[in-house]
């Protein structure tokens, strides 16, 4: 790359930070809209990644523990610029969340205690369980492809509610069950 084109393009680290900052600031709920934004920016516009790179990044990102989109930012940043790239991407993604949530939390602490706010919060709390259930409903097809997985989910539900076993241990039991059970090859892509 000659001097002139270098000057016209901002450094890659800055682009990564800026792009993920934008995603962190403007994306609600997370998930799939982010992937199409990454596709537009990095595969089509800048051509830093191929389509298949992005598919690999997304499939590994959602199979690693942690926050899916932070995982994706780390993987994508590494692909483009190595370890500094992943750190810049992850920082860009989380910085707006921390700033916005700090302001919101202080505001929440300031207004709570007011009678009307308490009533509004009681209404909002009433909506949280249906929000969780509706989100779980969307996960149903990917999470429960067959009878064995339904039984696993039921076992996890009962253990989590009645056994007092830590959730982390229940997940490890799930890992074990996944490794032992050999019938699930067909959903490798799902």
């Amino acid at each position, binding site marked *: 790359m000659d001097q002139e084109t270098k000057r016209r393009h901002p450094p890659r680290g800055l682009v990564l930070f800026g792009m993920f900052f934008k995603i962190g600031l403007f994306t*609600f709920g997370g998930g799939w809209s982010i992937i199409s934004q990454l596709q537009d920016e990095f595969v089509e516009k800048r051509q830093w990644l191929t389509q298949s790179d992005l598919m690999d990044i997304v499939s590994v990102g959602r199979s690693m523990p942690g926050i899916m989109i932070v995982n994706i930012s780390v*993987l994508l940043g590494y692909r483009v610029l190595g370890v500094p790239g992943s750190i810049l991407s992850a920082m860009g993604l989380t910085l707006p969340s921390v700033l916005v949530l*700090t302001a919101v939390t202080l505001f929440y602490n300031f207004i709570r205690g007011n009678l009307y706010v308490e009533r509004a919060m*009681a209404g909002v709390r009433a909506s*949280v369980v249906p929000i969780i259930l509706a989100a779980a409903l969307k996960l149903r097809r990917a999470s429960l492809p067959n009878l064995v997985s339904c039984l696993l989910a039921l076992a996890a539900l009962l253990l989590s509610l009645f056994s007092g076993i830590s959730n982390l241990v229940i997940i490890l039991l799930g890992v074990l069950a996944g490794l032992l*059970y050999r019938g699930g090859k067909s959903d490798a892509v799902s």
Partner: protein
Amino acid sequence: MLYLELFLSFVKVGFGSFGGLSMIPLINQEMTSHGWLTAGEVSDIVAIAEMTPGSLGVNCATFAGIQAGGFGASLVAVLGVMTPSLTLCLLAAVFLAKLSRSPWLARIMGGIRPVCFGMILASAVTLSASNYLVDSAVSLWAILIGALVLVLLVRFRWSVPAVIGVSAALGVLLIR
């Protein structure tokens, strides 16, 4: 040492979550067992994190951190929740293409996904216990709001911020 405890708690939350709401059961367990948040506040976090931009996990960690010990604590919590991404996932980045086609990873996820599904349902049950009881009596209005929200979300495909707005307004009007 609050910072260290908070950090370790969120490292656990990070390592135990695989996408979206699967973090809630762990946050619920870690926060309430340490007495950092009540079950009601855990519900508030979910609502607040859904109404604000950014990922649920970072938003939850910031909120819980501030409530448990102020701004410094929130940075510690966020760093904790990002630990799996910055360690395990960074390691995975090196072997990206090989991993994405690995049958082992697919098999492990085949076990993890249903387990997370079951635990999400369990957290819906435990949060119900605090959200539909007002002064240890069942609140009929809260249950009706919950039922309405479920219909709006599933049947009419409303967005989450919209149903949160509606339920806040109904709360002001109906809940005494």
